[in-house]
C-alpha cells in the first residue's frame, strides 16, 4: 500500500525566538531547522507499515519554499522512497495548506495519508482533519498507535480521561501523536542513499491566505518572582502569598 506523509520544516524546539525586521515573523538568522517532531512519528509509522507488508511506497510531501527540501531529504534519509516539494508560500491559514496538499494527493494512489498531530511552529492542529475533509476521507486525530485490519485502520486515540479506539475504512487520513512510533535515526547509509532518491519539485496550487498576520511579539518577560524560602518551613508563607497576594487559592 502506498502511503503519503506530510512533513513540515520548522525551527528546532531549542530555538530562542527573535522577531524579524518585518515585525511579523521570526528572524531566521542562526536558527536550525528540522522536521517537525510529530511528523517524524508519522514518517516512522509509515516506514514500519511498509516494512511489515514488504510492499508499497512511502512518499514524503511538503508545501514550502525551496529550503523545505531539507525536511524532505531528512525523510528520505529515514527511509521514505520519494519526495514531493510543492513550492509555494507557507502561511498560518491551514486550509490553504490543506488545499495545496489535497490537489497533489487526490490524484495519487495512496489509501493512507499520515500527518503530525500539530506542527511545532504555528501549533494550529488543523491541517490533517482539513485535508481529510477536502479529500472526503474519514480521519482520526491524535493517534498514538494504529494497525491495519483488512481494509480498515484501527486507531488508538488519546482523548481526555482515557483512550478511544476508532475504526476507519480506507482510504483514510490519520494524524499521529507521540506513542508507539519512536522515530529512528537516519543511518549514514540512509543519508547517502537519500541523495539519489527522487525529489520532485512542482509549483503549489495554493489559494491566498485568509489569515493575515499583522504583527508578532514576544510575550512579556515574566519578571520572575521571589524565592519564598527554603524547605518545608517556607510552606505557610507560600500558602499565605498564594491566597492573599496572588489571589490564587
Amino acid at each position: 500500500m502506498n502511503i503519503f506523509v506530510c512533513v513540515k520544516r520548522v525551527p528546532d524546539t531549542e530555538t530562542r525566538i527573535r522577531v524579524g525586521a518585518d515585525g511579523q515573523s521570526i528572524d531566521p538568522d542562526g536558527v536550525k531547522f528540522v522536521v517537525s517532531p510529530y511528523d517524524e512519528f508519522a514518517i516512522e509509522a509509515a516506514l514500519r507499515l511498509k516494512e511489515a507488508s514488504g510492499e508499497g511506497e512511502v512518499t514524503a510531501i511538503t508545501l514550502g519554499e525551496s529550503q523545505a527540501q531539507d525536511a524532505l531529504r531528512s525523510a528520505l534519509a529515514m527511509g521514505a522512497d520519494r519526495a514531493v516539494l510543492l513550492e509555494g508560500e507557507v502561511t498560518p491559514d491551514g486550509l490553504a495548506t490543506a488545499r495545496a496538499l489535497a490537489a497533489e494527493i487526490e490524484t495519487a494512489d495512496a489509501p493512507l495519508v499520515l500527518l503530525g498531530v500539530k506542527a511545532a511552529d504555528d501549533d494550529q492542529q488543523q491541517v490533517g482533519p482539513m485535508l481529510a475533509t477536502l479529500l472526503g476521507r474519514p480521519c482520526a486525530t491524535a493517534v498514538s498507535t494504529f494497525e491495519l485490519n483488512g481494509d480498515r485502520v484501527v486507531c488508538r486515540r488519546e482523548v481526555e480521561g482515557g483512550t478511544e479506539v476508532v475504526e476507519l475504512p480506507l482510504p483514510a487520513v490519520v494524524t499521529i501523536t507521540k506513542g508507539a512510533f519512536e522515530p529512528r535515526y537516519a543511518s549514514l547509509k540512509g543519508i547517502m542513499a537519500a541523495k539519489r532518491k527522487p525529489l520532485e519539485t512542482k509549483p503549489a496550487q495554493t489559494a491566498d491566505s485568509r489569515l493575515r498576520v499583522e504583527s508578532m511579539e514576544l510575550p512579556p518577560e515574566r519578571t520572575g518572582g521571589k524565592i519564598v524560602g527554603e524547605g518545608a518551613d517556607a510552606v505557610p508563607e507560600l500558602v499565605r502569598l498564594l491566597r492573599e497576594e496572588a489571589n490564587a487559592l
Partner: protein
Amino acid sequence: MSNVLAVVEQRDGALRGTAKEVIAAALGLAGASGGEVHALLVGGPGIQGVAEGLGEAGAEVVKVVEHEALADYHPDGYPEIVARIAGEDEYTAVLFAASALGKDLAPRVAARMDLPLAGDVTGLSIEGGEVNAIRPVYAGKAFTRVTIGATPALVSIRPNVFQPVNQAGAGRVEAVEMTEDPSSWPTRVVSFEATGGDIPDVAEAGVVVSGGRGMKDPENWTLLEELRAALGDGAGLGASRAVVDAGWRPHGEQVGQTGKTVAPKLYFAIGISGAIQHLAGMRTAGTIVAVNRDADAPIFKVADYGIVGDLFDVLPRLTEEIRALRAGG
C-alpha cells in the same frame, strides 16, 4: 445580523467547563458588533435539560440538537451538523473551545464551510469590521496578531483564558432537528477506556500540578495526586517530557512544546528544571509556583513563587496546609 455562535461541549450529558468560556468570548465580539450570542449544544436524549444554564452565561438563544446517535462526540456527525447550523444564519463569528474535542471538530467544520480557522486564540477583538485574534505560536514563545479575512470568522479559544460571566436571564431554547443520517458516517467508535477518572485534562484544568524527573520514581506520584486532590475538583496533573519518556506518566499529561500548552490560573512545577521546551508550554499560566532543590534551576526565572528545597519535605507540608486552608473555608 451580527450575531455570534458559540459551539459548546457536553460530556455524559453535563456541560463542560469550557462552555461558559466560549460564550464569554462570544459576548465580547457580539458586544462590539451589536449582536446577540447564540449557543449550539449537540448531545444525546435529555441534553435540553442542561441547555437552560447557558442563558445565565450570556446566550440569548440556545440551539439544541438532541439525538441518540449524538450522545458522544462523533468525528463525522458533529462536524456535519455544526457546519449546517453555522451556515444557516449570517454569523459574524463561530467560536469553539480549543479542547481535545474542539481541536478535532473545528478544523473539519472550517473545511466543510470553506473558511479559515484561527486556532487556540487567547484574545479577540473587532477592528475595522474584521475579527482580530491573538494566537500564540512556537508553543507560546511568541504571539501573533492575525486578521481573519472571512465571514463568519472561525476561532477556537484556549481554555482558562476567557472569564465566564454570570447574568440574570434564561436563554431561549430552540430545538433543531437532526436531518443527517448516522448510517452515512464512515468512522466507527469501537471503545473507550477511561484512565484518569474524573481528573480534568491538563489543557483544561484551572489548576495544574506537574511533576518532573526530581520526583525520582513513578510511585511518588501519590504525593502529587494528594496535592492535586487537596486543590479541588478543577485541578489536573501535568508532567515534564523527561518523565513521559521514562514511561512514568502518559503523554496526554505532557506540558510543553511537544505536549500540551496550558494556561491555568495556578501552576505547580515540582522537581522540574524548566527547559525551554517546558517553559514554552506553561509560561502563560496565571501564577507559577516552583519547588526545586537547585536554586539556579531555570524554572525559578519564570516562577512567581519558589521554594528551594527537597520536594519530599515540601510536598506533604504543602498538601497539608492547603487542605487545612480549604477545610477552614
